[in-house]
């Protein structure tokens, strides 16, 4: 262990982290955005990106019908082309977990995990007791992954150990039943130094994935934020031998955006992170753009939006 679990050792570890230079981090991310991904690499990247999509619906207006149709899309994103891979996961609110799990199992999507947003998503403003129940409820309903939010208020007011303990408690509930993704909500943490600190805090507390955003706060998964998080998982691996995943979510809408994310992964954490086990993209509209670009690569021309399914 690189910390002994005490508040002192956590604080010392986090305060010893090197700073992030904002200008430098943004310049590096900006340079990587100029990579030109063509032909065979583009085809590979599109299929990889599809298999990394956490297909998401997190609306107050979500219904069983909407969730079921999302499940169908997740299993067979393009009904006209069965060579298109299934997506990485379905991501829904707690009360939709059972519906999603049952539907996926019924239509051949047994291997697609269902992720539930828990711990008083998106604000995280509830008591620990409620957050624990929230998580337990999702797991009981069959969730394979828990996307928890950290208490940003506690983080920003310096109560780092409280945030740490909260993640530990949720991790314990997840046990071996569910993977834990920890949402930092980087748009509310604001600085890259905070993003780096929160990334390490989450990893030390037991996160399997660190995730940028709830999707409810802008800016969300900006390239420099993802860069800083990828540096964190890369260096954490050097330190501990453990590979932690990264999930950008929010604002990734086009194939170009998605490919830029994969370039960031390749040139920061490395090729070994280019798998749905270690990189996911939280999105909804993105999937159709990926499908349309895939068609364009195969046929040489753009189809109208009516050639992909709305959900």
């Amino acid at each position, binding site marked *: 262990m690189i910390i002994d679990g005490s508040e002192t050792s956590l604080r010392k570890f986090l305060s010893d982290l*090197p*700073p*992030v*230079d904002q*200008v*430098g*981090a943004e*310049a*590096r991310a900006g340079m990587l955005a*100029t*990579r*030109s*991904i*063509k*032909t*065979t*690499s*583009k085809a*590979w*990247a599109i299929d*990889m990106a599809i298999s990394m999509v956490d297909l998401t619906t997190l609306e107050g207006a979500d219904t069983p019908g909407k969730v079921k149709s999302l499940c169908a899309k997740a299993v067979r994103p393009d009904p006209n082309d069965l060579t298109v891979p299934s997506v990485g996961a379905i991501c829904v609110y707690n009360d939709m977990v059972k519906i999603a799990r049952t539907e996926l199992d019924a239509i051949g999507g047994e291997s697609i995990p269902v992720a539930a947003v828990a711990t008083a998503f998106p604000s995280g403003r509830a008591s620990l007791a409620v957050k624990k129940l929230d998580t337990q409820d999702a797991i009981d309903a069959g969730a394979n992954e828990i996307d928890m939010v950290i208490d940003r208020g506690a983080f920003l007011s310096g109560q780092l150990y409280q945030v740490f303990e909260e993640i530990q408690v949720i991790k314990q509930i997840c046990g071996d039943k569910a993977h834990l993704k920890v949402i930092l909500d980087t748009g509310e943490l604001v600085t890259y130094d905070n993003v780096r600190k929160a990334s390490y805090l989450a990893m030390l507390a037991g996160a399997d994935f660190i995730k940028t955003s709830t999707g409810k706060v802008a800016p969300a998964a900006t390239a420099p934020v993802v860069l800083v998080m990828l*540096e964190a998982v890369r260096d954490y691996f050097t330190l501990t031998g453990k590979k932690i995943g990264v999930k950008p979510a929010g604002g990734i809408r086009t194939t170009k955006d998605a490919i830029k994310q*994969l370039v960031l992964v*390749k*040139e920061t954490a490395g*090729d070994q992170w*280019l*798998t749905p086990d270690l990189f996911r993209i939280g999105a909804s509209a993105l999937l159709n753009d990926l499908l349309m670009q895939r068609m364009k690569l195969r046929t040489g021309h753009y189809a109208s939006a009516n050639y992909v399914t709305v959900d």
Partner: protein
Amino acid sequence: MSEFDYASAPESKAIANIASNYGLFIGGKFVEPKQGKSFNTFNPATEELLSKIGYADKTDIDAAVKSARLAYTRVWSKMPAKERGKYLYRIARIMQERAREFAVVETLDNGKPIRESRDTDIPLAAAHFFYHAGWADKLEYAGFGNKPKPLGVVGQIIPWNFPLLMLAWKIAPALAAGNTVVLKPAETTPLTALLFAQVCQQAGVPEGVVNIVTGDGVTGAALVNHTDVNKIAFTGSTDVGKAIARSISATKKTATLELGGKAANLVFEDAAIDEAVEGIVNGIFFNQGHVCCAGSRLIVQENVADEILEKLKKRMSLIRVGDPMDKNTDLGAINSKEQLNKIHEISNSGDAEGANRWSPELKLPSKGYWYPPTIFTGVSQSHRIAREEIFGPVLSVLTFRTPGEAIEKANNSMYGLSAGIWSDKGAKILWAARQLKAGVIWSNTFNKFDPASPFGGYKESGWGREGGRHGLAGYLASEAKVSK
């Protein structure tokens, strides 16, 4: 799972209309050299012949200087400053319009990655013309007296590392101040200067205001020694700079000289490590290290040296070396066989003197001139690789224990062009910047250029400044010094 290797993404050559041969640009026209001699320019990445270039000798230089003198006395010095400015704006806009063409020609002739010519060289060159266009009619407010006057005819000699950008650094301030110019591009990279001559024609710049003469060192010497040249502006090696200084010493000619460098890049323990590693890479591997202000000496605090070096090696393994025309290439070709030999020679002395060489595993193309990104650790101040300018992708790594020692090592050089400071502590940065004997100091960044910012060195790195108000001063005279 297949790997995400970037498929080749080459920029198209179609836009570059490189003629099979070029004459000299004198008096607004392309003319054949009087002796009819020529030399070849090659693509250093493929060794393919690009074009035959006219070789200017003494008589051609004389014709070019005469044409510049005539243009100066009859047209350019009499033209209202506002009108001069319009020509500069016009040049800048045309350069932007033809940016892709310039970038492709630059990369073919020089060997630098298209990403750099496209994103750095050409935009900065255009920016220099825009910036100086603004000065043309405001010279009396620049702080050089009420009526600053041009010097007359300026001879300019530029290097091969940033051919068009160095042309812009030279020509833009000279013209803005009201001088006319005779410019000699480097022997291995004449093409963008000749393309620029076409831009002058397109912009309707009066005949003789800009003259481009191509050739080698003998051509350059003829320009330096011409009796009707009022000023020499030179960027290149310290040896040639010294020779120029000697040959004009008994004349009334003035000179600005931008010469060599061996910049110290100081990394303190409190630096933002990941960004410092990026800065080290950018400092030495940008433009194949063919940069006079390259951060070729990494001086890193000993207690973070291992961490920095481990990260630096990982990062260097990601550098994409190869076809400069590929949009994803990070490190292109060495500009010439001669330069490659020089890099080999000095680097080999590093092995012989006991430093430890490291390069990432990679396959270099079989044709063309290439050198892998290389670092030497265990370097001491007495090694040649710590003292001499290599002008290639080779970094010497030294360590220090205290801030005082860092400064001492950094300043212990015959050069003093640039330096970098990496620290998260503002007070430390300001303290270090005051101690460093270097003309340009970057903090938490490297190789950043702006037309408004003066550039130049201490000690054997040169005389004078280029860019900004300080650079303008080098092209203006007080009332007493005005030329005939």
